[in-house]
């Protein structure tokens, strides 16, 4: 690994690092929000499935942080737990709370929102991971092959929920359609490569933003057609771009909670 590191120019390394932070922070926050459903999912099988998906996703985040560590960006655990919100590169969608209330008190979480968020996010992740399998940065391309195999089961799971709830009762359909609006409202930075966009694209680390968007739309089209629904539009204008460290208060709250144990004893071995 060190041999690879040595031949990278500073500019090249910055582009790789920037993309890795986007991928790592996305899966880290997605897994964290998923883990908040533990014990709350609609039924026992879903509880098992959801926690398995969160665990896999946390594993993906850990692997991206490890790749960052190998590039000299810092210790993987510290990168995950100790970076302040403005240094985070995750998309806005992954940081959003699951609904009203708090996990420890009266969580009034919205399962429709979790289904739509997870389905759209997982499908976006698949589009990126497919592209990353051809990344010019070999360690990332190899890692992507691993992620892709596990993601297969996640995507199938969320697509099943998505189709079933949208073919269900009027209440379910209304909740799902409301959730689609809310998720799409935050979808503007999902395929953004942030302020390193040019370098990331020039070094062929991943497909360009337009291509990723196109592939995402093409990938969900058959599902929407079967449901007689229009494919939602990805917003062009962004209130916040998470890829540039612009975030909502939801991220502050998440970081405070998720790093609490780690910060209580940073030298402990887990």
């Amino acid at each position, binding site marked *: 690994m060190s041999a690879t590191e040595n031949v990278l120019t500073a500019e090249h390394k910055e582009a790789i690092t920037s993309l890795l932070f986007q991928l790592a922070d996305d899966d880290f926050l997605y897994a964290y929000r998923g883990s908040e459903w533990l014990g709350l999912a609609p039924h026992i099988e879903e509880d098992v499935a959801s926690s*398995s998906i969160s*665990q896999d*996703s946390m*594993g*993906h985040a850990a692997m991206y942080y490890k790749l960052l560590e190998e590039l000299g960006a810092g210790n993987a655990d510290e990168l995950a737990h100790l970076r302040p919100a403005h240094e985070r590169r995750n998309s806005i969608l992954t940081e959003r709370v699951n609904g009203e209330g708090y996990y420890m008190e009266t969580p009034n979480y919205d399962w429709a929102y979790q289904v739509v968020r997870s389905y759209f996010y997982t499908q976006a992740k698949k589009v990126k991971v497919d592209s990353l399998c051809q990344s010019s940065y070999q360690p990332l391309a190899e*890692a992507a092959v691993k992620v892709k195999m*596990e993601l*297969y089961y996640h995507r199938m799971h969320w697509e099943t929920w998505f189709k079933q709830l949208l073919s269900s009762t009027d209440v379910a359909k209304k909740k799902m359609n409301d959730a689609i609006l809310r998720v799409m409202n935050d979808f503007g930075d999902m395929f953004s490569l942030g302020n390193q966009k040019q370098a990331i694209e020039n070094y062929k680390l991943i497909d360009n933003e337009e291509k990723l968007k196109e592939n995402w739309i093409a990938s969900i089209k058959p599902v929407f057609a079967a449901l007689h629904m229009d494919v939602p539009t990805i917003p062009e204008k962004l209130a916040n771009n998470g890829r540039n460290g612009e975030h909502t208060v939801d991220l502050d709250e998440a970081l405070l909670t998720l790093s609490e144990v780690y910060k209580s004893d940073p030298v402990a071995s887990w």
Partner: protein
Amino acid sequence: MAISESVSTNRVFEVLRRVKDPEIDSVSIIDLGMVEEVTTSGNNVKVVLLPTFLGCPALEIIKKNTIEAIKQLPEVEEVEVEFVFHPPWTTDRITEEGHKNLRAFGIAPPPRHVEEDGSWHVDCAYCGSTYVTMENIFGPTACRSILYCKSCKNVFEAMKPVSTLL
């Protein structure tokens, strides 16, 4: 002056056969196809392992157990264990012995064949009946699914297929 004997890779492989999956103690890391390479240099050993599922909490324990097991060999000085992503671990790396040992634990081994639409079938781990239904594709660990046998009326687990073709 005593000249210490250097390590042979065969001796290391013998030891690795005794390093078990901490969550399925009937199968070794050799059975699972996790050992990619063993190299020795004088009295030092390097083992390259392939992680199964990326989020599997057993990986760090396996690494620790591997180091400890090899260090039991009197001729060994330094042991290094590294996880690499390439080649990717897939369930077809599990050996015949691994299939047998999974069954002994009550887990159906991963199917050799997956349909074009991604669906797959395994027989009951207990009675061998083919009359089974999928209860949950996700199970108690990342690598397992939960099924139900309509013949012997037992819930059983299967190792889910993981393949680059999926």
